């Protein structure tokens, strides 16, 4: 079996100053509509799961059944791509290490998420290493939300990955070179990566690298079907 870590999209972070996002920090995956934000976010989740870590997938839009089926589709793609032998055991392990918290009909509140995370830790001893937040209306979310996520990341000692929708027609970049919509809150973000589909292929590009300048050519090329790094 090929090692997933070697071809995971998060291999990009090897080109970052700290080689990781890190606990207590926020990371954002930016992309335009239809490029594959959710799929790429779930690949980030699999990166964590393959490392034996636990994660909570927070869905602000889709019902748990849809999220589960996303994970299943990507898992079976990985089974093929990696020629995975112990498929059943891995699936069982990943299902155990992943928890989905869904907030339907705009019922999401940071306070409620905090209570839910506390329940997971206290009542069922599920201690997550990462949170994956999908479906956040990034451009319309108040700064309070990001501050809340930042506090949660510290309090629960987790790293948090979220996605943000960018637009072709909005090309604004702030003074630190961070594009819209991350530009509004980039002081709270440690890593920003951008998924881009171009004529020459799909690329994942490092946009913000903690407090360090981003290295030129800090990007990886992804297989457009599997979102795995093309080696």
């Amino acid at each position, binding site marked *: 079996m090929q090692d997933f870590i070697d071809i995971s999209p998060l291999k990009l972070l090897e080109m970052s100053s700290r080689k990781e996002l890190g606990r207590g920090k926020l990371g954002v995956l930016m992309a335009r509509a239809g490029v594959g934000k959710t799929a790429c976010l779930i690949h980030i989740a699999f990166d964590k799961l393959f490392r034996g870590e636990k994660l909570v997938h927070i869905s602000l839009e889709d019902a748990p059944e849809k999220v589960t089926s996303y994970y299943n589709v990507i898992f079976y793609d990985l089974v093929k791509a990696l020629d995975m032998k112990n498929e059943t055991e891995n699936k069982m392990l990943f299902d*155990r290490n992943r*928890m*989905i918290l*869904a907030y*339907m009909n705009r019922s999401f509140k940071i306070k409620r998420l905090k209570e839910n995370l506390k329940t997971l830790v206290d*009542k*069922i001893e599920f201690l997550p290493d990462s949170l994956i937040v999908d479906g956040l209306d990034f451009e319309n979310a108040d700064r309070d939300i990001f501050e809340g996520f930042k506090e949660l990341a510290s309090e629960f000692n987790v790293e948090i990955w979220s996605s943000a929708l960018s637009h072709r027609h909005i090309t604004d970049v702030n003074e630190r070179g961070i594009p819209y919509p991350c530009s509004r809150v980039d002081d709270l973000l440690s890593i920003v990566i951008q998924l881009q589909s171009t004529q020459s292929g799909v690329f994942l590009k490092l946009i913000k690298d903690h407090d360090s300048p981003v290295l030129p050519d800090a990007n990886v090329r992804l297989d457009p079907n599997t979102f795995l790094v093309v080696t």
Partner: protein
Amino acid sequence: MTPEIEHIRNIGISAHIDSGKTTLSERILYYTKRIFAVHEVKGKDGVGATMDSMELERERGITISSAATYCEWNNHTINIIDTPGHVDFTIEVERSLRVLDGSILVLCAVGGVQSQTITVDRQMNRYKVPRIAFINKCDRAGANPGRVVEQLCARLNHNAVLMQIPIGLEGELAGVVDLVSMRAIYFEGPYGGDLRSDDIPDYLLDDARKAREVMLDAASMFSDRLMEAIIEGDVSSGLIHEAIRTGTISRELTPVFLGAAYKNIGVQPLLDAVTLYLPSPMDVKNIALDLEQEEKEVVLVSEPSAPLVALAFKLEVTPYGQLTYLRIYQGSIKKGDDLVNTRDRKRVKVGRLARMHADKMEEISIARAGDIVTLFGVECYSGDTFTDGRLRYAMTSIFVPEPVISLSVSPKDNKSEIKMAKAINRFVREDPTFRSYVDHESGENIISGMGELHLEIYVERMKREFGAEVETGMPQVSYREAISARAEFDYIHKKQTGGAGQYGRVAGFMEPSEDGVYEFINSIKGGVIPTEYIPAIDKGFKSCLKKGRLIGFPVLGMKITINDGQFHSVDSSELAFTQAAIGAFNQAYFKAKPIILEPIMKVSVESPSEYQGNVMASINQRRGIIISSAEDGMFTNVESEVPLAEMFGYATALRSLTQGKAEFTMEFSKYQKVPESIAEELKKTLVERSKGGKK
């Protein structure tokens, strides 16, 4: 007389226990002249309410089994399906909700929205059933209909709007003000049968005007014409009814009515509302599955001349024989017609056709789309679909899950033995997930089904309905065995008994099957085993799967390959090779490291969000894996996978953890390996139990 389809209402009456829905049903039957005396639920007069036709229901004052009854009001036919009001009887609930087009949600003016109200309301949401609300018991101390309306909005997310206001409350309750006609209605004469319309009392005029304004505001959202009429100050009752009906059928509005059924107040206006606002069968989209096209969904047309499609939703044993309750979705049925049961394609003749009114009947000669009728003496199962043979549609999927739990039942005496057999025979027909067999080793009667409560209800019904006194064993999980490694076999079956001998040699290997299916691969080359004996070998292996050697439960599939063997021109026979296969299986089975598999249930718990922690902890304590938790306002739905063996008594535990405010459903998900630590203990217990059974 067959009613026009637009004048039919198929409704349910749903409520929290003790909200008075059976009393309300009773009054409805009285005012519609289906009964001529009123009896109370608890049966102080020894008769009991008419809708609670099963003895058990009468005794407990609750409704377990859904009796259907019909009545007429304002030139409309109303079929009432009395839905169960208890969370444990979900099979009955699901069945009755399937045939409803609309419902009356009964609430207590004192208790308001209670846990069971939340449950039944959610069930109706699931089946997209439009409803109107009736706030009952307005005569009780502490009655507060205004608060109940607020709760309907806040706790159940209804767009609830009062259609009436009370004239007096608690002991002073005298009648209601109708906000559409702006008239006071008083209920006079014996059992409130005479309605007197009068001017609104002066002290209530202001309240009535304000409440009417709120009602018109809500209704105008569903009719531009009404909105214009309000602006022009020319609002007619017809326009209001039309708008309220549109809002109700789209489930975006819940009109609320008031009264006290026990005191005979408010029931007749509620009946008017049923005919005015709830949908006719024509207003509802019904879906069937076309079995000729891999269960593709097809929309039925409520047309009497279309090919027949009808669903048998309930069977009952009555003094008249077996009774089948049928909802006709499309087409018509006449006395003497031939019907075809979609499940087994058998033809049945319609001998007698009737409408039921609780446990009394009225014969009719024809019934059409939208109607609910009963057939006599038709052999079928509950959930069967009938057509006239032109279509092969099914109203429910023909897939029936395998039972996951079993229980031994034994009669206490000889009389009970016959009664128990009758009861089991009946239940098997009523419910395809209920099975029964005799364990040949222990000689015990085993009943099996989909859960602990499922079986408990049937045991209770054996006693109550059939008078069978039975004792039950401990619930038994249906485990499975499977092999986990490849193992080879090479077995010779040789027997010389004086006459013709038996000889057969089979060699090959067994290996685990990925998808749990049995597969037999014949890789014999050069005719070392003649082709005619190969099916006998397959048969021998298959027979071994019925009962595993590890704990005596069925073996869940495996792949068997035979690649060598030997035969004798005189002594070989099919029997000899079947025996050789059995020998080969026994030789290899333990080498193939058999494991125990247990049924894992998909458990879904819905509860108010504040109990999420308790719910998760309860699942965690039961070796469960929590898959997800989804919040939607005040409710949280926790999805998990839990071994069935850990689910015994969960309903009780959940109730105490959540003050009865949570509801759970479970269904079989998959078989999974039992953890080593538990498997050892289980082996010991099961082996001991089987030794006990053989004694």
